[in-house]
């Protein structure tokens, strides 16, 4: 993984010193809240319902054991013993005192981490496929390009005060696990007919109150042109993006209002001015960054198959976990493991201090000291020898993180909602917990098959409800929480925005409604291989509406 050079160290240390001074001046009353707010936001410090919240960047979701152990330490020393992994592959702490933030940032800097640009109208943490570098189906590791974008976008003087926040995601496989079409810029790393690396470029995706699927504006951009082309996009956005209305300020609105043909023309014209100048990436620089992401030395471990076969016979729960949470690696003797942070009835994405430390130990012992945070709020061990899978599983059982539900209905994305968030209008987490408990039976979950359920506690859609196969949006109506259901969304290579199915449900009704939807699907699917999303796309909303609301129509 990437290691800070001298410049990076100096930059982060200087920022820690600068912000520490700003915090001290704020606490001493030398600067006002109006002056301080933009400064704290630039450093990831929000004010939520109960306390401050600190959002820490995990660049493209990549961590090592030392870093995760430090996050556990911060949780224990400065917070309340846990952290929350987010849909942007970051981590949030919900209770830090402002007066402790300088010490926290100094601790983070000691392990090459920070909270810079995790808020504000700037280019945020660049996200990537959580199986990057391990996936059997990827063309190349997308993370070196994410790192190049990180370096370019960090305190970029031209792009630090954009009309609104700006999110970039990169994937290196046809199967999109990074939800690139829901981002301001989505980059699909691919090879052209000549075998050269480059990107399909998408712009204008986003969720929030106006969900839009990104539009492809270029089928192949040579890798050397990555920064000049992104600069061209950002320049067009920075110049023409709306600043008169916060809710219409994202690039998706600009793309929609300008039209994709015209905005493509503008970007291409801007790019012509930039493409042969200093932003052209020198090949040596790309290779130098790629070298940081060189895969670990995966020695052959042909004993894995026999070991797994034997252990399967011995333990049904291990066998279930293998089937659900372990995926193929590009090296046949290895696998990538999803550590579910979605235990039945638990808070999606939360991990305790001791769990973080234990996972760090496991990563160091069995996974070449590599970890990922997925945008689905789980942790990933990208490289585990198949021969070590049982040992990893046993270690995860010991810390309560061996739930075999990856991609099943209880693997729910949920935002913090009204339990923590100052913007939320309804709670998300208790709904996720109740649905998780309702579908606790693994046998039943596996019978249902792949089903992405996503819950947001307000229209800002941090819980990605628009792109859930089943999406739930919590709103406040007449002083009560009301949950609106959307069906048919997805966030993969066939991204779609879900459709509102009908009137919303109270907190008491919503789990029954979800069960009704699931039962309807089970009743109409062509065969057990037809996934929920495929069945929905085949039949549309009518059977689900009928199941949910027919009784009401008759009663009326």
């Amino acid at each position: 993984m990437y290691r800070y050079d001298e410049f990076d160290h100096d930059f982060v240390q200087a920022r820690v010193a600068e912000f520490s001074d700003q915090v001290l001046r704020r606490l001493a009353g030398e600067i006002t809240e109006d002056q301080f707010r933009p400064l704290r936001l630039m450093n990831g410090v929000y004010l939520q319902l109960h306390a401050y919240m600190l959002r820490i960047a995990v660049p493209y979701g990549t961590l090592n054991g030392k870093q995760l152990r430090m996050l556990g330490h911060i949780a224990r020393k400065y917070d309340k013993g846990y952290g929350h992994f987010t849909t942007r592959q970051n981590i949030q702490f919900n209770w830090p005192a402002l007066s402790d933030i300088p010490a926290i940032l100094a601790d983070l800097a000691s392990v090459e981490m920070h909270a810079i640009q995790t808020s504000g109208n700037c280019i945020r943490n660049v996200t990537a496929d959580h199986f990057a570098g391990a996936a059997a189906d990827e063309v190349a590791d997308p993370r070196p390009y994410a790192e190049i974008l990180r370096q370019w976008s960090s305190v970029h003087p031209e792009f630090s005060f954009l009309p609104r926040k700006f999110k970039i995601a990169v994937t290196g496989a046809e199967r999109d696990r990074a939800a690139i079409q829901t981002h301001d810029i989505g980059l699909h790393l691919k090879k052209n007919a000549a075998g050269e690396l480059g990107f399909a470029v998408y712009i204008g995706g986003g969720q929030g109150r106006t969900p839009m699927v990104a539009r492809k504006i270029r089928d192949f951009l040579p890798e050397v042109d990555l920064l000049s082309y992104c600069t061209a996009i950002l320049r067009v956005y920075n110049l023409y993006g709306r600043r008169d209305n916060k809710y219409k300020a994202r690039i998706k609105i600009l793309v929609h209002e300008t039209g994709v043909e015209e905005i493509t023309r503008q970007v291409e014209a801007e790019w012509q001015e930039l493409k042969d100048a200093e932003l052209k990436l020198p090949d040596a620089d790309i290779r130098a960054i790629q070298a940081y992401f060189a895969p670990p030395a995966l020695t052959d471990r042909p004993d894995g198959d026999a070991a797994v076969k034997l252990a399967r016979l011995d333990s049904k729960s291990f066998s279930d976990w293998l089937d659900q949470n372990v995926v193929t690696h590009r090296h046949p003797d290895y696998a990538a493991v999803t550590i579910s942070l979605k235990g039945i009835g638990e808070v999606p994405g939360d991990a305790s201090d001791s769990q973080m430390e234990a996972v760090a130990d496991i990563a160091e012992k069995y996974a070449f000291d590599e970890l990922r945070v997925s945008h689905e709020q789980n942790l990933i061990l990208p490289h585990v020898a198949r021969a070590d899978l049982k040992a990893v599983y046993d270690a995860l059982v010991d810390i309560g993180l061996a739930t075999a539900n990856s991609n099943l209905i209880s693997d729910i994305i949920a935002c913090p909602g009204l339990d923590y968030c100052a913007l939320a209008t309804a709670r998300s987490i208790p709904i996720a917990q109740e649905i998780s408990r309702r579908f606790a039976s693994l046998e039943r979950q596996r019978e249902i098959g792949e089903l992405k359920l996503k819950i947001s506690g307000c229209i800002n859609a941090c819980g990605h409800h628009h792109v859930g196969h089943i999406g739930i949006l919590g709103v406040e109506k007449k002083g009560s929480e009301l949950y609106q259901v959307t069906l048919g969304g997805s966030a993969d290579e066939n991204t779609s925005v879900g459709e509102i199915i009908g009137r919303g449900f109270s907190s008491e009704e919503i789990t029954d409604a979800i069960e009704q939807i699931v039962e309807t699907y089970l009743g109409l699917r062509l065969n057990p291989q037809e996934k929920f999303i495929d069945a929905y796309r085949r039949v549309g909303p009518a059977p689900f509406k009928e199941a949910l609301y027919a009784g009401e129509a008759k009663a009326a």
Partner: protein
Amino acid sequence: MKILTANRLSDGIAVWYADGGWAETVDHADLAHDKAAEDRLEAIGTKAYADNEVVDVNLIDADVVDGIVEPVRLREKIRAAGPTIRNDLGKQAARAA
């Protein structure tokens, strides 16, 4: 009825104005029964904000139930108690201890 709430500058903890100071629980928050009392509370909040004691100052609706002040909106009930999913966190944790 209205009460005055904010978050303390130094640690961000939710506080309510009660008996001449900022209390960590809502239970005995000063109640404003009329516009004049609301204005008085608002002035106290404005001054405390200007004095850098608190941030995010708001007047919110409240009721009195069995002699204890309770916010009306769910959002404010959750601020006053803690996350509904973790009884070991927030004000409710201290109350249970």
